[in-house]
């Protein structure tokens, strides 16, 4: 497909990922931006997917009429949040499998209304990571954000995580866009020095390390002891595989417990480590991904030639 001037997708040629944030406050704005985007997709024979709020779908329903039946998906956003960012992104990623197999471009109208639910704000990080993780996927993702429902900080995050925005009738680079690592570091907890009162052990095998973790989960996290143990185990397993030995530390900060694993193996230096969904085959990456989903926060830093990872668990 060749780029066409004055389309609803700017210079997108259908061969790579394009990611636009569209912030709206009225149905009229939706009608002006989203209806032509969808109509053009249908006209080009591209698989066109709409996962949006009731209000947006009502606008599309009215504008498309029977054409609505040609949409590949026409669904309510509310059913797509899986309770955490990892699971939601994993389901989203898996749903793209059949589309990838066609080898043809597709377009998506997505409205992550779950940004406003408790814990949903972390979705901004996955929006940032998507730019790298899905860069080779041939689709245009038009992400809607209703400024009437979302806090100013969430709207700001949308502008910082989407490389494209809609401005006066055309697709333009977002002036607020930040590279993935820069955005992630700005919203993650800061990497402060480990306190002197931390307890540390050197581990060389998984089983004893796992038992050490389980025995040292703080009382306030007893109900999550198995999950804490599994999460830390996966990080330890990665470290032992990379370096053969690792330093395992833990400490408390107020109502949270921090577990840190340091190794000197070949480093894990991707900015989006733990945020990117594992590949759809059986390759690695699932351990860190799983640990990330079980912890309340996970932070990865370069540690000399190796890696240091902190998992943070907050008491209820």
């Amino acid at each position, binding site marked *: 497909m060749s780029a066409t001037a004055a389309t609803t997708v700017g210079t997108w040629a259908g061969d790579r990922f394009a990611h636009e944030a569209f912030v709206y406050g009225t149905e009229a704005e939706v009608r002006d931006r989203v209806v032509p985007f969808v109509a053009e997709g249908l006209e080009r024979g591209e698989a066109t997917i709409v996962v949006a709020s009731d209000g947006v779908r009502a606008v599309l329903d009215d504008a498309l009429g029977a054409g609505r039946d040609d949409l590949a998906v026409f669904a309510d956003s509310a059913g797509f949040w899986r309770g955490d960012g990892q699971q939601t992104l994993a389901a989203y990623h898996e749903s793209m499998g059949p589309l990838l197999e066609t080898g043809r471009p597709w377009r998506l109208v997505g409205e992550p209304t779950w940004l406003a639910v408790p814990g949903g704000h972390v979705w901004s990080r996955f929006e940032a990571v998507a730019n790298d993780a899905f860069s080779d996927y041939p689709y245009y993702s038009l992400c809607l954000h209703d400024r009437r429902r979302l806090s100013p900080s969430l709207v700001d995050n949308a502008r910082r995580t989407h490389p494209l925005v809609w401005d006066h009738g055309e697709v333009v680079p977002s002036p607020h866009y930040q590279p993935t690592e820069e955005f992630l570091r700005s919203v993650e907890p800061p990497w402060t020095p480990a306190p002197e009162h931390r307890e540390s052990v050197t581990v060389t*095998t*998984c*089983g004893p390390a*796992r038992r050490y973790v389980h025995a040292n989960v703080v009382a306030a996290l007893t109900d999550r002891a*198995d*999950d804490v*143990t*599994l999460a830390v*185990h*996966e990080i330890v*397993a990665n470290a*032992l*595989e990379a370096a053969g030995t690792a330093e395992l530390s833990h400490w408390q900060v107020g109502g949270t417990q921090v577990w840190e694993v340091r190794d000197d193996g070949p480093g894990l230096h991707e900015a989006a480590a733990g945020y990117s969904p*594992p590949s759809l085959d*059986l390759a690695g990456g*699932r*351990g860190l*991904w*799983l640990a990330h989903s*079980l912890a309340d926060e996970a932070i990865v830093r370069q540690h000399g030639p190796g890696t240091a990872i902190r998992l943070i668990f907050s008491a209820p």
Partner: protein
Amino acid sequence: MSAPRTLSRAVDLAPGDHASWAYDDLSGLRAVCLDTFAEGAARGEQLVYLSHRPLGQLVDDLAGLEGRDALLRSGQLVVHGAQDCSPDGAGLDAAVQVETWRSRAAASVESGYSGLRVVGDITEEIADPAHLADLLRCELAVDSMYAAAPALALCVFDRTRAGSRWREVSSLHRIQHIPGEEPAFALTLSRGVVRLMGEVDLSSVPEFAGLLQAVVESTTGLLEVDLSELDFIDVAGSRVMAGMRTAMTRAGRELFVTGVRHPAALPLREFNLHEGAAT
């Protein structure tokens, strides 16, 4: 907890048990023989000790067994070469081994003994790559036979001479002794159902992969993997199962898991192996 049972001494074994014992030197082997045969003799069991080593050395191993010579003369204690358990040169044929030991257990009872107790040194079979696959199939097959027979077996091996794959053999026993270690997991196969107990993680992936391969080669059609006694599995262990499922699917077969418990469901979910899991 459903961890494999650990033996510190070769005692408190009962009919139906199928145990493994890793030793590091001759004194370790002799200690285990004396312990278990003393217990078996006191219980009126027929005792069988077999190995590839010369018979005279086997008799010497039992020098500390009270009444050894009388036991040998009466036939309650039998010492013979491992090759004598492979009639007609059948080698380590699983079906032949099952029938051989089932018959010998029945014969022991018919002769007035309370049961049969076997100590078999399988170091040579583990160390020989040409025999290992057959040995794994035999161990898989005889486990369920022993579970239902008036017999128990203690499979002993010198881990300093057995090569790198002795952990696979050890893991085919619900009762294990490994000097200085807790056994990680055990795998059994009965009526087409694989049962896992204990903990499978990155460190046990080589053994787990080898044993699943042996199971697949020993079975046909659907394969159920029952995880109801598995205390822990991580992403690395789950990946092994997912890889085996993929290979079986290509071969027109199916692998499915049952009895998944939290938190095993979480790593399994990463590979869509968690169906029916209680999370």
